[in-house]
């Protein structure tokens, strides 16, 4: 169920260049289930900035009623969010959307992420691991300074890093790594820039895959029709990324 709650900030850390890890606490965490869902955060009580910011859920800790978001502070709203400190409160609406279907993986899954698309894959990896699924993580970043959670992913399975400038790991994109890896998995899950999602779908046309899309959003709950995408089903068919997604099976969304 979707809830709106003023949640307590427990911790905020800068974990890479412009990247922040924010942990908050509250009963809204009880509603969280699927990895890949997101929350819609109001960063100020004023109307400046006006709209909420959609932020993906990086990890969920039901016992302590805490969850962690990882976001890039580059715009007005996220910069205000980056100033929040332990003890502050933030207005959170969520959990929103449909996440990754963990039950679809059988034995081994590839988790492919790019930049700020990496965070939801962490909770996904944890949940897949707890179901006995082996996970391989292929993560792309701009540069060495932009990398986060490398060690945390390594603790959960094989982890391969690509950087655009070659300052760490493989030089180039995640697809350069995918080309070198055996196709010995049954399911892939991916989140990142649209171009990356396209490339991943091309790389594995025969595999079962699930992709998390990004679109500029308004309401976050499916009412405003800002984040629609056409689909491959028919000329008139469409989906709303916020409420029908953000995760869709490969081959459905025309981005």
């Amino acid at each position, binding site marked *: 169920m979707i809830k709106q709650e003023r949640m307590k900030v427990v911790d905020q850390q800068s974990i890479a260049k412009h990247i922040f890890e924010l942990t908050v606490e509250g009963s809204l965490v009880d509603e969280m289930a699927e990895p890949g869902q997101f929350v819609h955060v*109001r960063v100020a009580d004023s109307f400046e900035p*006006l709209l*909420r910011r959609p932020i993906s859920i990086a990890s969920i800790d039901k016992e302590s009623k805490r969850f962690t978001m990882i976001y890039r502070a580059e715009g007005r709203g996220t910069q205000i969010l980056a100033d929040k400190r332990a003890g502050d409160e933030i207005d959170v609406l969520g959990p929103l959307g449909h996440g990754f279907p963990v039950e679809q993986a059988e034995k081994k899954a590839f988790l492919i992420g790019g930049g700020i698309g990496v965070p939801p894959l962490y909770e996904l990896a944890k949940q897949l691991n707890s179901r006995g699924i082996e996970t391989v993580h292929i993560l792309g970043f701009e540069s060495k300074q932009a990398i986060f959670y490398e060690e945390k992913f390594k603790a959960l399975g094989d982890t391969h890093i690509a950087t655009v400038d070659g300052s760490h790991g493989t030089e180039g994109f995640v697809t350069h790594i995918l080309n070198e890896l055996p196709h010995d998995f049954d399911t892939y899950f991916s989140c990142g820039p649209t171009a990356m999602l396209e490339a991943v779908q091309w790389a594995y046309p025969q595999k079962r895959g699930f992709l998390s899309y990004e679109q500029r959003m308004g*309401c976050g709950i499916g009412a*405003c*029709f*800002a984040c*629609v995408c056409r689909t491959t089903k028919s000329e008139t068919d469409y989906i709303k990324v916020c409420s029908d997604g953000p995760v869709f099976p490969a081959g459905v969304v025309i981005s």
Partner: protein
Amino acid sequence: MIDMTVKIPGLELKNPIMPASGCFGFGKEYAQLYDLSQLGAIMIKATTVETRLGNPTPRVAETSSGMLNAIGLQNPGLESVSNSELPWLEQFDVPIIANVAGTTTEDYVEVAREISKATNVHALEINISCPNVKKGGITFGTDPAVARELTRAVKEVSSVPVYIKLSPNVTDIVSIAKAVEEGGADGITMINTLLGMRLDPKTGRPVIANITGGLSGPAIKPVALRMVYEVSKQTQLPIIGMGGVTDVDDVIDFLSAGASAVAVGTANFVNPFVCPEIIGKLPERLHELGYDSIQELIGRSHRL
């Protein structure tokens, strides 16, 4: 006991608060969050004869205390709204105001005739003010003679009272209001969004794919309030006022300016519970101000 009820053509409202068209879909999303029967009414998303897929994305952009949108009247079309969306809304004890849009007079007439037959549709809101479609929409709302004739044509076929939704993108909104009054309108809803744009500072390109979009949110409230004030002064028609309403004092302002009821738009995106919250606070605020009913407040700015 504060009397929250409002009576205007076709509508006996338990309170004067309703979500504005285009900001509430057909109610399904918000029904997950609260009981829609609390609302005074619901203005459903614009309906056209055929399914419309709307504009390319990006469709929204944030601005200072506001937002631009160019959704492009995306909707499932008359048949689907009549057979599926409206029957679904019947489970709630709330009157529906159906927003009607089109590209030709015939379009408006067809939608108005059919949709006004639905048992829970108590009034129509004729959208002659959408700034985001290439044909129709705003072109009907900027010329008084055209607006009058469209009003006449719709009035002739509608089974329920007809409210005309006015555009602020005109030199003289009063002349449009008077024209639709002559055309037989039962009421006015105002204002639709203000045409605007935003550029990407890096590329210099418009952020919205449609290039321009309609500005809404707190930024437009002073413009909306001024227009409601002017129109209520110079026409006899009841007004459902809207434009940047976010809290109970905004509602007080619109009622004072001459609106009989108030719609909440963009604020639903910021706080999805905003309508029931305002409804909850309204009686106490009225009491604090020394009023016993909504009715006493309507148009008080003109009496000073």
